[in-house]
């Protein structure tokens, strides 16, 4: 009993450590005063200013554009790559996976600088270079999610489909796709979260005109803290929370499916 109480208290303390900062942001976003400790009454004006602020809205739109484009392209490329890699011999497979691990394990700052050094030789830094950079660090997450599914998938079912007269394309969409689609989807989600959160690589590859939320916030935070940012934080936290609920729902319904299969 003592042990149980102690572990509950521990959970509570860590929870507090993780959520107190976020709670403070949320509370301040409704505070009708610029002070950080005095409650000046409830207001939504920071939300209104947040939506009016073009720096914020532009960065928001750019972030969504980059994130979605990078996630979609990297999911396509990554899924194809995973299919190809799964068919490779051990040695080639090891080489491809080794290269895949580079952006995962290397320091973001080095990855970002290395790409910048390449890009400035050929094109102006901007939206396209950021997009290429995001695709590059997104692909590994897609591959690492899809590859295990392909390895688990019963490869004889694909061959059986061919044996029964299916074309390779038909066999892929009817037999292989259902087995790997959950991996493709979680790879896509992970690519989205990685792109949304990235700062360092974007920072070095973005050039002057383009800003994602991360780089915009960096510039703003160096200047000082404006209350609109509290409102922005609250909105982004809510989006993350909703994403969490969706993912949690998905994984729990997947779990149920697995049990039913047994």
């Amino acid at each position, binding site marked *: 009993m003592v042990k149980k109480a102690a*572990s509950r208290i*521990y959970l509570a303390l860590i929870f507090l*450590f*993780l*959520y107190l*900062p*976020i709670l*403070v*942001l949320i509370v*301040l976003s409704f505070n009708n005063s610029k002070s*950080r*400790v005095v409650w000046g009454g409830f207001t939504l004006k920071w939300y209104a200013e947040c939506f009016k602020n073009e720096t914020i809205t532009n960065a928001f739109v750019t972030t969504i554009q980059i994130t979605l484009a990078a996630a979609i392209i990297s999911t396509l490329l*990554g899924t*194809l*790559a995973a299919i*190809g*890699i*799964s*068919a*490779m011999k051990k040695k*080639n497979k090891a080489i491809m996976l080794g*290269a*895949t691990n*580079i*952006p*995962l*394990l290397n*320091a973001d*700052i*080095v990855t970002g*600088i*290395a790409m910048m*050094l*390449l890009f400035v030789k050929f094109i102006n830094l901007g939206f396209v270079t950021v997009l*290429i950079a995001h695709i*590059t660090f997104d*692909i590994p997450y897609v*591959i690492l*999610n899809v590859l295990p599914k392909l390895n688990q998938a019963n490869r004889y079912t694909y061959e059986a489909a061919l044996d029964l007269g299916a074309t390779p394309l038909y066999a892929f969409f009817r037999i292989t796709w259902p087995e790997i689609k959950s991996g493709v989807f979680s790879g896509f989600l*992970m690519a989205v*979260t990685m792109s*949304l*959160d990235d*700062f*360092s690589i974007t920072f070095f590859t973005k050039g002057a005109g383009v800003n994602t939320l*991360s780089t915009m*916030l*960096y510039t703003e*935070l*160096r200047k000082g803290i404006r209350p609109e*940012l509290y409102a*922005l934080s609250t909105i*982004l*936290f809510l989006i*993350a*929370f909703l994403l*969490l609920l969706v*993912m*949690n729902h998905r994984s729990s319904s997947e*779990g149920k499916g697995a049990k039913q299969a047994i």
Partner: protein
Amino acid sequence: MRKSGRQLFAGPYLIWIIGFILLPLAMIIYYAFTTSGGTFTFENVAAIADPVHVRSILLSLKLGIICTIVCLLLAYPLAMILNGLKIKQQNFVVFIFILPMWMNFMLRILAWRLLLSNNGIVNAIFQFFGFGTVKMLNTQTAVVFGMVYDFLPFMILPIYNSMARIKNDVIEAAKDLGASDAIILFKIIIPLTLSGIISGIIMVFVPALTSFVISDLLGGGKVLLIGNVIEQEFMQGTNWNLGSGLSVVLMIFVIASMALMNIFDKDGGGTAVW
């Protein structure tokens, strides 16, 4: 389709690897070993021996190690408790503890700036209890706080996952053979979660070692990590060759720390990130 045909699907990715992973690395190595005029030199890499750079890399190592240890000490009991929760909503509870990871990195730092500033909440509490104002922002402590806050989920996840994989009957077998709770922890649970611990250490230590944003925003320019030095060479100074040289050195530190950790990881499964 025959296997050899299927391999071709990886073609576009292979081109991508060459163009956007290997070529950039070649570029940074080229810059690192040449002067601005294009002649070969070791100077940029050797510049790490400059006292300013030595100080910053030592500080990076120090804060990175502190941050990693704090994360490990916080995350391990947490993972054990989470793993021990035998409730239906277990997945949801675990998600709650890694959710902050999904909020924009920069906003998490903003939150800590608010909390730690002289007129922030923490100091308001200190003043209430009569401790007076404690300067926390723009110190190394603040940087460590921010790092721990940012990277803690990366420690929780792999440890929790490796713990969830331990079969209950193995624990029961140890009990059956007379093991006390302490023996079970040190002889069974910790060795069996070692690969998770190592993944966690790598996933926390590498970004902590190479960070420049957290030190910039919470350290107020007073905490100069190696990442900050490199960033300044590119963004404020113009010596890209020196910046590249230091980057290569940093990369060597990263590789060395991973190699060091992999010595402990006999299973070899530890570097799998997810």
